[in-house]
């Protein structure tokens, strides 16, 4: 079973379009900078993040929303990227086929809730944002922006959310329930997540360095990315160009700890194994891995062990693109799906920036230069709190 991908849209710290993101990936231009947009945070101007340097009102203007809108930043980013994906897939009538939206978010409208938490009680003018808090509201807004009427749902499994949204979308097509599904994820930076990760002491005070012996933690980021998945029937009837196929996926739980990953990477190992099994390929077929690689001591060690367990001494070229974008939580797997497809399309392995020293516990190390190489099959990993581990396999059309 292979599911066709016919469109993609993205907005991240390294660009507002697929082309801009690709140009940055190729030229090694990272998007990590000091926090600016959250004006009343103590972390402003100090903390390194993958921030999109567009204000909410600039994003609203790009979406041509009326002044009275009640979009959270997460919804603004999501609606923008999803519209771009649908445009890219040359869809003029979104409801011409049975179409669904499976979107992912972890913070939802938290940016507005933290801004107006107490103010809501005194100031009726901001109350329109009360209903923008929950995760489902984000997906409803995106569906409305697309004019989509159909099955709409939302997945929130922390940092693996978008991978699971992609998986669910594919299964809805495979089971014949839908012809077309817009899948992906969106998360805006918020005080809530910044301070949450800060209390866990896994934020780096400088630029994140995945798979480096001296890595100090992650940089948070914000982003949204969506893919258009379409059934073979739609592809046949519309003669549409296929960008890539989703050819396998796996989801497993580490069942080890609420926030930490097991030392041997059991959940990650199982997810990758399931994905390979589903794609019906051996591990030798994988040409490149876009790893989760958050640059926390725990993740990279756990993922590294899982990679060595799955691939043995033949671990393919791998890199984390989080030094470019930061860790964009529920959007991460969606933006990395776009990067995996770009890698396939251009036969390029993107460099793992900021890497200096190989980890002592592992015999593998990431690719640190832009590498030209024929790529036919790419694996993308995403793991999250709650032991949630997901792996996706993309292949050339």
């Amino acid at each position, binding site marked *: 079973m292979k599911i066709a991908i016919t469109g993609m849209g993205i907005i991240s710290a390294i660009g507002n379009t697929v082309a801009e993101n690709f140009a940055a990936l190729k030229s090694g231009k990272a998007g990590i900078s000091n926090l600016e947009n959250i004006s009343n*945070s*103590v*972390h402003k101007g100090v903390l390194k993040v993958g921030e999109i340097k567009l204000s909410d009102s600039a994003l609203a203007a790009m979406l041509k929303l009326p002044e009275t809108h009640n979009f959270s930043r997460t919804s603004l980013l999501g609606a923008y990227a999803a519209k771009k994906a649908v445009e890219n897939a040359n869809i003029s009538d979104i409801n011409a086929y049975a179409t669904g*939206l499976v979107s992912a*978010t*972890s913070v*939802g409208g*938290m940016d507005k809730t*933290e801004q107006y*938490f107490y103010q*809501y*009680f005194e100031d009726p003018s901001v*109350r329109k944002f*009360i*209903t923008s*808090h*929950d*995760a*489902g*509201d984000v*997906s*409803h807004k995106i*569906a409305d922006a697309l004019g989509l*009427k*159909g*099955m*709409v*749902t*939302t*997945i*929130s*499994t*922390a940092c693996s959310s978008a991978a*699971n949204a992609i998986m*669910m979308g594919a*299964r809805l097509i*495979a*089971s014949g329930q839908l012809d077309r599904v817009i899948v992906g994820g969106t998360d805006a930076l918020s*005080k*809530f997540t910044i*301070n*949450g990760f*800060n*209390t*866990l002491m896994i934020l780096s005070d400088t630029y994140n360095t995945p798979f480096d012996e001296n890595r100090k933690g992650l940089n948070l980021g914000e982003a949204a990315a969506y893919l258009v998945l379409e059934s073979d029937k739609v592809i046949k009837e519309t003669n549409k160009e296929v960008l890539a196929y989703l050819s396998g996926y796996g*989801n*497993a*739980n*580490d*069942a*080890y700890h*609420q*926030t930490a990953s097991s030392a041997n990477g*059991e*959940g990650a190992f199982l997810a990758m194994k399931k994905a390979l099994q589903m794609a019906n390929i051996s591990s030798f077929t994988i040409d490149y891995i876009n790893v989760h690689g958050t640059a926390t001591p725990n993740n990279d060690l756990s993922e590294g062990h899982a990679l060595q367990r799955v691939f043995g001494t033949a671990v393919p070229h791998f890199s984390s693109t989080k030094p470019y974008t930061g860790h964009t939580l529920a959007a991460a797997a969606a933006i990395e799906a776009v990067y995996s497809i770009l890698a396939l399309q251009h036969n390029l392995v993107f460099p793992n920036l900021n890497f200096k020293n190989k980890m002592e516990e592992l015999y593998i190390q990431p690719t640190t230069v832009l590498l030209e190489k024929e790529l036919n099959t790419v694996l993308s990993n995403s793991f*999250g*709190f*709650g*032991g*949630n581990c997901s792996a996706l396999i993309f292949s050339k059309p």
Partner: protein
Amino acid sequence: MKNCFINGLSAISTQDTFESDFVNSLKTVNPNENILRATEPNYKAFIPPAAIRRMAKGIKMGVATSAKALEEAGLTQVEAIITGTGMGCSQDSEKFLKNILDNHEQFLTPTSFIQSTHNTVAAQIALRLACKGYNFTYVNGAVSFESALLDACMQITAADIASVLVGGIDEYAAHTFSLYELVGFIKDKKNVPFSVLNPTTKGTVFSEGATFFALENTKNASTYAEVVDIQLRNKLTSAELPTFIASFLEKNNLETSAIDVLIVGNNGDVEFDGFYKEAMHGFKDSIHLYYKHLSGEYNTASAFGLWVAANILRQQEIPEILRINAIEKKGYRNIVLYNQYRGLDHSLVLLKSVN
């Protein structure tokens, strides 16, 4: 294609549903309350005492009901855990956010942040069972649970999975509920008493609860019912509802007359109850039942509705307290559940008797 059977279930709700049997557990609630709270059991049999103190109510309700549903199905392990929650772990989210705001982002501790993630309940169940299988959490308003149920059935019918724990959880959280009062989603106490069937005011009586089901690909002595189909729609007009229902029935090769019982999600909101009137209008000869006058409204209250439906099919008995109309049937084979919230997140679920 394999079928998807409910072989165990458990509910914590405003009713005494956790300890008591189906027929005897359902009692009328105080019509002068605009917020109802779930009746908590003694968690000691399910959760270690230290964890009981640390966990928010939603996590405890979820862990306890999942354990009981599993036990009832005679299972000790499952291959997948799938949850739905509209608002997620609101208590921990509020707590962490208040600390951020009140202490200007200083002196924070991680516990409430760790427990605030939407997938906390699914993760805690996986940890408790050491279950390394498929683990998903859906968070989409009033179809959060139905999304989880759809996925659970797809796991069984299409992914070769033999057993799934699926549940819906939403908890009371003081600040969130006060914001809902502010925007009128929760009824104004000035307008008591409240009636779910004959409302005169907007908003609903809000509540909380957790309902879990153990699903398997095989039928056995403990089977309640078969989940046949689930259909979701983000928005509809009242005029579009009959077509939505008709195509659902057609897909399942059923005439309206084959539906013995229609269970509607009426929540006493005069603004949106028209959808339910429209639905009942389409099932003139079916028994009409409602349940939110007993459970209250919350994003996953429809899981309580499914709990009601599954119990009716197994026991072939309908408690009078659930009835809207007086139609009688000799037996109950097919039940359709219809739910929506504020005109969004419409769902249809078809349940079949296995007798």
